């Protein structure tokens, strides 16, 4: 019980720090912070597959993009539809677009997972990549429906109207930051409870030893499929936020660069932990900014960093930091123990 409270305290403090971060910063930094949170949700969703299932999908970007496209297309109103040259003008409000994009991603995740999860290892990666490429290609080609390479533009700002309350409009990076923070906190809480559930235990058992777990009655396919679907849905949540925040979405969002960024954030940050992918997202967005690295040097840097991390810190940065810290604490305790003996 004590341990639980300590965890809770840590998270409350971290959330408070996160809430204070954008205060008094210029708009550009606020924008980067907001982007970090959205990408962190995406990285966390990918980490469910890589870190908790212990499998590799190379098609996760498709779900991020699908989430973004779903809200983009459904929320277009008449005015903006004209600009996008798209026939749609549904103008769905937020409370309808949110469940719609989650549902689309859940269904796509279920179907693609159902077909792909017969495979393991690199093969699983390649089938999922195949599906993602097909979706990407269709998005580019079906111009009349998706806007083709120029994507969906003129997405209306995020506006939530609740009865009896003033309309909540999030059109600045600053206000959107707090919405993204709410989503991120929800995602972290959700995943943390997931891992503590019977479902999460079964998932980790499968990751550790699939043969043993199935001898204990764990239905590998069922659990993998459920986890894959959940991961796809959360990627859709990130895509949803991304699309509403930038107010446009292009095929890049379901293309190969978003696969790269997911891999980079999760592997560099650290798989199988809650904070690893968040730290990964932070590094991904901020390190190039801090060192004022040009856009094209940024991926170059992360490509090299990916190699270095895999060779030298195969667990990723965050878990390595934790074990370093543990060792430090342990040594301190040992020393204390010795001193205690002496003083006696």
């Amino acid at each position: 019980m004590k341990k639980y409270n300590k965890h809770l305290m840590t998270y409350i403090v971290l959330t408070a720090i996160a809430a204070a971060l954008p205060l008094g910063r210029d708009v550009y930094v606020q924008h980067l912070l907001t982007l970090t949170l959205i990408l962190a949700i995406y990285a966390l969703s990918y980490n469910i597959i890589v870190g908790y299932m212990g499998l590799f999908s190379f098609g996760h970007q498709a779900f991020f993009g699908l989430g973004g496209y779903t809200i983009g297309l459904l929320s277009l109103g008449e005015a903006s539809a004209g600009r996008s040259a798209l026939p749609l003008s549904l103008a769905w409000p937020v409370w309808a677009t949110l469940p719609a994009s989650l549902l689309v991603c859940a269904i796509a995740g279920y179907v693609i997972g159902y077909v792909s999860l017969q495979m393991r290892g690199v093969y699983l990666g390649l089938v999922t990549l195949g599906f993602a490429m097909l979706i990407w290609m269709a998005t580019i080609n079906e111009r009349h429906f998706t806007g083709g390479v120029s994507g969906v533009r003129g997405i209306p700002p995020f506006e939530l109207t609740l009865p009896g309350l003033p309309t909540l409009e999030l059109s600045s990076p600053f206000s959107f930051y707090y919405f993204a923070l709410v989503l991120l906190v929800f995602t972290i809480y959700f995943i943390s409870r997931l891992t503590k559930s019977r479902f999460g235990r079964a998932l980790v058992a499968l990751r550790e030893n699939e043969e043993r777990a199935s001898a204990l009655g764990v239905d590998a396919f069922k659990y993998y499929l459920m986890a894959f679907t959940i991961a796809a849905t959360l990627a859709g949540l990130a895509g949803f936020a991304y699309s509403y925040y930038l107010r446009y979405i292009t095929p890049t969002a379901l293309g190969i660069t978003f696969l790269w960024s997911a891999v980079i954030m999760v592997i560099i940050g650290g798989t199988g932990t809650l904070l690893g992918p968040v730290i990964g997202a932070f590094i991904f967005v901020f390190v190039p900014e801090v060192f004022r690295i040009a856009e094209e040097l940024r991926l170059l840097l992360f490509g090299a960093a990916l190699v270095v991390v895999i060779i030298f810190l195969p667990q990723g940065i965050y878990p390595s930091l934790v074990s370093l810290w543990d060792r430090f604490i342990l040594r301190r305790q040992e020393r204390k123990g010795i001193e205690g003996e002496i003083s006696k």
Partner: protein
Amino acid sequence: MVILEAKRLSKHFGGLRAVDKVDIGIDQGDIYGLIGPNGSGKTTFFNLVTGFLPPTTGQVLYKGEVISKLKPHQISQRGIARTFQQNSLFPHLTIKENIIAGRHLKTSGSIAGSFFNTISYKEEQKGLEQKAMELLTFIGLEERADVLAKNLPHGEQRILEIAITLAEEPQLILLDEPATGMNAIETAKVINLIQSIREMGTSVIIVEHHMQVIMGMCNRIGVLSSGVKIAEGTPEDVSKNKEVIAAYLGSGWKHA
């Protein structure tokens, strides 16, 4: 009452007949020893019974139901547990978590229960902790409950494996060489453990090269040689059987 029945069970790997038309019946409460030289098909027999391999011909019945087309997890759901010849644990989980993994089928908590941290979720968690600690006390590992499984010495890993199957509360346990690589003290511990499994009324099939374990524990013994069952009976019958003696002398049988 017969609970497990193998009928003309065969498994061929290409031209190799790893298990060849084997008939075996296990009664409720049996401690059945399955012995035979290296490569005689004992592990393959286990894999057939637990669904890790599909039989080439023949079938396996559990309580009258044909289970030879089921997947491992489905067979486990019917109450058959097993250990593996090679240590097969969850290496990066703690000893306690390993035991809790064995309770998968005995729990039912939903994701929503965990998300809202409901009373029933908390109670199930508490029950799991308790059950795990009981079992760990039983095998004498309670003080190392939070040690990672991979950090246990070999002998204790094997004992932990048996404890995981006990956590399943199965009706039939298949143990594949539980005492390999163990010293005398650990072997005695395993014998004790199997003894208490018998007292619970659980049936056991055990593959073992330690004759001390087999002869002292089993009420019936079956002998495989090149996939064929060449003898079956009480320990005295089998140890006097000429064919058995010939099969062992003629091959690389290890004396315990």
